[in-house]
């Protein structure tokens, strides 16, 4: 965690309600093993707590023990965390494996999803049947956003400040915990508005668990206690596993009609009480569950149901010839379940199932439903919604603009909920059609269009629904209004901390106003949940699952559908026909670095004694030491750092090293960073790895040369470096000796780097700028740290160290390519905007500037691994360095058109260049009136390189061509090194400059420069043989 984050928490009052500045800080210690089995809560039992183990801590530290619940409370969060680490507790193991069952359940359900084809109908005489199981998690996620949860409990009253999506359930938990009545418990969100009871439930998140934790500690100590809710609560999400399990079965006649329909629901309540409540022993343990009582209903249930059994009723709008619906009955004393949640869970399972049956039996999902509906209003509603959405099967995907890496799909779902008196006829019918776009690389799912038809009730706020679903079920909306900027948070909202919507921004957290989010609904609505009722939301989860299936062919049978789950499922299913070329690792910028001048080093050698200790070799950590989540995070870190680009030799296997780097001081070779024990980093401990990354010192104590950009990697956070270590250690070990460097004396003396480091290396980790937005800080972290942008884009001084200040990102030359300025010195004919930068970094091309090529191509290729948000963050940060606007203004577009028009006619007096251009270039670079697939889409009049003060990149492109090998959408250009002489290249370059950059001075001294750049080691691009 960053220092800023700690500081803000240690400071105590920031973000806390004003009158609670006297709050103390609590951290809970969960048992080593605990879980919800689906029927009961099981955990290890506390044997003893050794309070003496906290003696060394400053200030008053209290330990709260209630049953198996253990918490420590201190004067600051940092001390409480230390206490939680130091406190010695002894547990009696009840469960052998932590959460084994729940993990297994999840895995199975995902496996079923990816192997749906093998679960085809079993032919049994005349009938075919299908059986599926759907699940609902006990906790959708750990929370909406990191934040404080505070409880202030007395004998007669309990006040809780925090975040919840299920205030009723939370209130019930708190009542069971404290014995207080509902009226004595008040819930507030952090701006001290009382939390509305209208909020909808798509299920609980760990805000409730944190609230119960805080309340337990507060009650025990008689003072307000604040708990920090963040991704650490993911362990509760995992431990609590599945709350609901629904099995469905159908038998079909030859004509595809559903003759028999079974629905069985494992629990009457789809909710699981807070962890603290279970651990403290104050939860009402349900008595042994009786077998579910089957309820055979030949017809739709009507108004005569007993209200007491409300939650155990299974309602279905459809009519099947023979249907069996059953659910466990509610137990007395059990937390009464939310009818809304049960309704949503039922609709999810039923509507997903019907969709599966329809698709597997070759029927239109809408027609299949219509076949089994008798209710005229429902039929009318569905037909009108289908018509409005232009429903057809298969969904005709808009082919025109969709980028290659987007999968699109459309789904349908329907629900009918009874009214207050359990009458179906009088209830609300709701039919939904949703379109989704799935990024097949990142797994990000965007709900792109939503059509909702409802036959009753208030007008449907489709935008609000869309936003709610995007946030809660897809978990990707990340507005900038964060409570605490998590600049090193990766990803996609499942295992990493999320940036959910701050429902109620604290008055004390004064950040920038929200900017555009990735969803179409860009504005931050006030508590969207308050606008929704259960009836409105009930088909919402199924409709996304169905659309996701349409897009990807993968069936997700349990929400949420986070990017991480989608990405993993896509990966698993993609192994068959690989239409997508695998992103092989390849060339990169060979960055050389001038080493030190001897005299200066001698002067500092005393201070910075070069001989560092050798760190003991360790056995290679076993591959299962790190969680899949950590390794996945490490994969993203490696992608952002583009490790493989330098550590892979041309044609060699990834990360084996051996790529040569030509420098003025000799040749350097990148090393083997696979976990081979003899030749790679297999024997490196994490400490050794971290020292190399932060200080440029190898495990054996020798200095690394700063061609390895440890000067940038030093900025990476601890968590990221650990994840990177985990990832590298989990890769296959390959034995390969690294060639010996060929450096001339004195540069061959590694120890001299100590002096260089003392002068130029700042190993402090990245510090976010509290005055900047979360997006900016994330971008800065990636760009300055792992992304090491400045390694190429900042000029270096005579000592080979990057210049800073005004020269930061001011452009430089690397290996024969110009890395253009990324600050206000940019020479682009049309000024860059944040949008253009994003297009360039994400897709490798900005139509107003050109394509990524040369050493930048593999950078874009690496960025393809990163989530949308991260690429946006880098674009945002670079745009800030350029003082660039957010979007492309009309003025810029008009100026672009003017330049293109002016360049349509050849400039006179340069016939030699013109002939070459017409012969070699014009077929692809000029408009001929024939629609051409292989035409370059950026007009040369807008190309940044042609407007630069230096001709290097133009010469490189003519000689070597453009080969952004693995970035879909970038065209390729052949190299002309073998067909043009230096004079011809010079003629052509002069001609291009005069015609397409007429406002710039002609380039001078072209031929000698071309001759230099012809040297093979300078040509970073691949010519196709």
């Amino acid at each position, binding site marked *: 965690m960053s220092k800023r984050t700690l500081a803000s928490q240690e400071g105590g009052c920031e973000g806390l309600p004003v009158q609670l500045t006297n709050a103390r800080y609590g951290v809970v210690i969960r048992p080593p093993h605990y879980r919800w089995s689906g029927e009961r809560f099981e955990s290890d039992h506390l044997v003893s707590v050794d309070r003496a183990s906290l003696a060394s801590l400053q200030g008053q530290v209290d330990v709260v023990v209630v049953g198996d619940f253990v918490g420590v409370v201190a004067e600051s969060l940092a001390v409480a965390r230390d206490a939680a680490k130091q406190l010695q507790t002894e547990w009696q193991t009840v469960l052998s494996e932590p959460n084994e069952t729940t993990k297994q359940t999840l895995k199975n359900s995902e496996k079923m999803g990816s192997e749906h084809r093998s679960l085809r109908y079993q032919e049994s005489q005349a009938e075919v049947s299908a059986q599926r199981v759907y699940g609902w998690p006990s906790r959708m996620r750990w929370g909406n956003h990191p934040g404080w949860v505070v409880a202030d409990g007395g004998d007669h009253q309990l006040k809780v400040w925090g975040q919840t999506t299920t205030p009723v359930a939370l209130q019930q938990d708190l009542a069971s915990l404290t014995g207080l009545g509902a009226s004595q418990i008040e819930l507030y969100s952090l701006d001290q508005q009382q939390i509305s009871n209208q909020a909808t439930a798509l299920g609980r998140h760990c805000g409730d668990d944190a609230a119960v934790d805080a309340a337990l500690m507060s009650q025990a100590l008689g003072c307000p206690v604040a708990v920090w809710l963040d991704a650490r609560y993911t362990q509760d999400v995992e431990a609590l596993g599945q709350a609901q399990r629904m099995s469905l079965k159908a038998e079909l006649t030859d004509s595809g009609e559903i003759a028999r329909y079974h629905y069985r629901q494992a629990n009457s309540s789809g909710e699981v009480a807070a962890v603290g409540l279970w651990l403290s022993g104050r939860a009402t343990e349900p008595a042994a569950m009786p077998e579910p009582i089957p309820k055979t209903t030949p017809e739709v249930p009507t108004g005569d149901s007993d209200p007491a059994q409300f939650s155990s009723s299974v309602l279905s709008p459809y009519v099947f010839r023979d249907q069996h619906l059953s659910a466990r009955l509610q137990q007395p004393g059990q937390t009464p379940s939310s009818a809304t949640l049960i309704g949503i869970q039922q609709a999810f399972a039923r509507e997903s199932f019907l969709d599966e049956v329809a698709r597997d039996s070759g029927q239109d999902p809408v027609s299949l439903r219509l076949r089994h509906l008798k209710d005229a209003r429902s039929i009318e509603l569905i037909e009108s919604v289908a018509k409005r959405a232009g429903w057809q099967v298969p969904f005709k995907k808009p082919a025109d603009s969709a980028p290659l890496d987007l999968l699109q799909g459309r789904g349908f779902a329907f629900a009918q909920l009874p009214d207050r008196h359990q009458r179906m006829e009088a209830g609300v019918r709701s039919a939904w059609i949703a379109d989704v776009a799935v990024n097949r690389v990142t797994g990000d799912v965007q709900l792109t269009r939503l059509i909702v038809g409802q036959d009753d009730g208030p007008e449907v706020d489709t935008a609000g629904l869309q936003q709610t679903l995007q946030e809660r079920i897809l978990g990707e909306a990340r507005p900038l209004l964060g409570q605490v900027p998590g600049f090193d948070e990766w990803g996609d909202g499942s295992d990493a901390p999320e940036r959910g919507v701050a429902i109620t921004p604290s008055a004390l957290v004064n950040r920038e106003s929200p900017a555009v989010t990735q969803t179409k609904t860009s504005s931050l609505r006030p508590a969207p949940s308050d606008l929704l009722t259960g009836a409105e939301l009930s088909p919402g989860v199924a409709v996304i699952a169905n659309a996701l299936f349409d897009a990807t062919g993968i069936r997700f049978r349990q929400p949420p559908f986070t990017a991480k789950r989608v990405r993993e499922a896509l990966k698993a299913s993609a192994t068959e*026909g690989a239409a997508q*070329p695998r992103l092989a690792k390849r060339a990169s910028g060979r960055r050389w670095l001038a080493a030190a001048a001897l005299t200066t080093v001698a002067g500092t050698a005393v201070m910075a004694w070069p001989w560092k200790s050798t760190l003991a070799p360790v056995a290679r950590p076993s591959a299962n030491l790190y969680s899949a989540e950590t390794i996945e995070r490490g994969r993203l870190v490696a992608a952002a750092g583009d490790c493989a680009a330098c550590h892979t030799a041309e044609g060699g296997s990834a990360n084996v090293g051996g790529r040569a780097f030509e420098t003025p001081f000799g040749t350097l070779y990148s090393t083997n960073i696979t976990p081979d024990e003899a030749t790679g980093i297999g024997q490196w401990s994490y400490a050794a790895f971290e020292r190399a990354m932060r200080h440029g010192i190898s495990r054996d104590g020798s200095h690394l040369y700063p061609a390895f950009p440890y000067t940038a990697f030093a900025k990476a956070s601890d968590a990221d470096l650990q994840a990177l270590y985990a990832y590298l250690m989990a890769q296959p070990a390959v034995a390969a000796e690294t060639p010996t460097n060929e450096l001339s004396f004195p540069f061959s003396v590694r120890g001299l780097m100590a002096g260089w480091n003392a002068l130029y290396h700042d190993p402090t980790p990245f510090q976010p700028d509290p005055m900047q937005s979360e997006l900016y800080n994330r971008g800065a972290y990636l760009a300055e740290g792992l992304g090491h942008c400045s390694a190429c884009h900042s000029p270096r001084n005579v000592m080979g160290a990057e210049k800073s200040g005004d020269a930061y990102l001011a452009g430089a030359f690397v290996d024969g390519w110009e890395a253009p300025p990324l600050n206000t010195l940019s020479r682009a004919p049309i000024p860059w905007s944040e949008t253009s930068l994003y297009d360039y970094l994400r897709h490798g091309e900005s139509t107003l500037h050109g394509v990524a090529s040369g050493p930048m191509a593999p950078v874009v290729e690496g960025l393809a691994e990163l989530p949308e948000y991260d690429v946006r963050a880098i674009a945002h940060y670079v745009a800030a360095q350029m003082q660039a606007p957010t979007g492309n203004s009309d003025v810029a577009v008009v100026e672009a058109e003017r330049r293109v028009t002016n360049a349509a006619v050849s400039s006179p007096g340069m016939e030699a260049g013109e002939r070459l251009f017409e012969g070699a270039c014009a*077929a692809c670079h000029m408009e001929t*009136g*024939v*629609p*051409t697939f*292989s035409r370059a889409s950026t007009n040369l009049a807008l190309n940044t390189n042609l407007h630069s003060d230096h001709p290097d990149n133009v010469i490189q492109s003519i000689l070597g061509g453009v080969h952004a090998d693995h970035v879909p959408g970038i065209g*390729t250009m052949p190299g002309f090194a073998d*067909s043009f002489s230096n004079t011809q290249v010079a003629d052509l370059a002069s001609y291009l400059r005069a015609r397409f950059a007429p406002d710039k001075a002609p380039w001078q001294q072209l031929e000698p420069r071309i001759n230099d750049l012809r040297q093979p080691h300078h040509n970073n691009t691949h010519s196709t043989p």
Partner: protein
Amino acid sequence: MTLKLTVNGQVREVAVPWNTPLLNVLRNDLALNGPKYGCGLGECGACSVLIDGMAARACVLPVSAAVGHAITTLDGLSQNGQLDPVQQAFIDAQAAQCGYCLNGMIMTIRALLNHNAQPSTQQIRAALEHNLCRCGTHVEILQAAQRAVVINAAALQEAPHE
């Protein structure tokens, strides 16, 4: 690596490096010899194919760029045993001498007509400006192109495409 290509309406699987030029795959792996190898640098147009109905120079296109798109070569231009109007026009006008460039000429005119059914003579010249013929059949090729416009229009009237 196995790639799936849609060529002349059929899905074909080829095991080639992803950066093999499309032309090599078409000619060597799929035995479609309509497109010709000329300059290898995208300059002459002899290698032209249609991708999603647009002209493309197959010698400079890595095969991976064509995955997911519909590729049509000269070999697949005829429909139901009937030559494409453009092919027929080139036969009618006897526009072949050495014939090496004709694949490119025909495919480029096909792409032009897909986009503009009634091009002017000027537009035809512009369209063929970067298709090189070196045996001197330019006049016949232009006549063939103009005839193609007529036959194509007639064929369109008979059976409207869209």
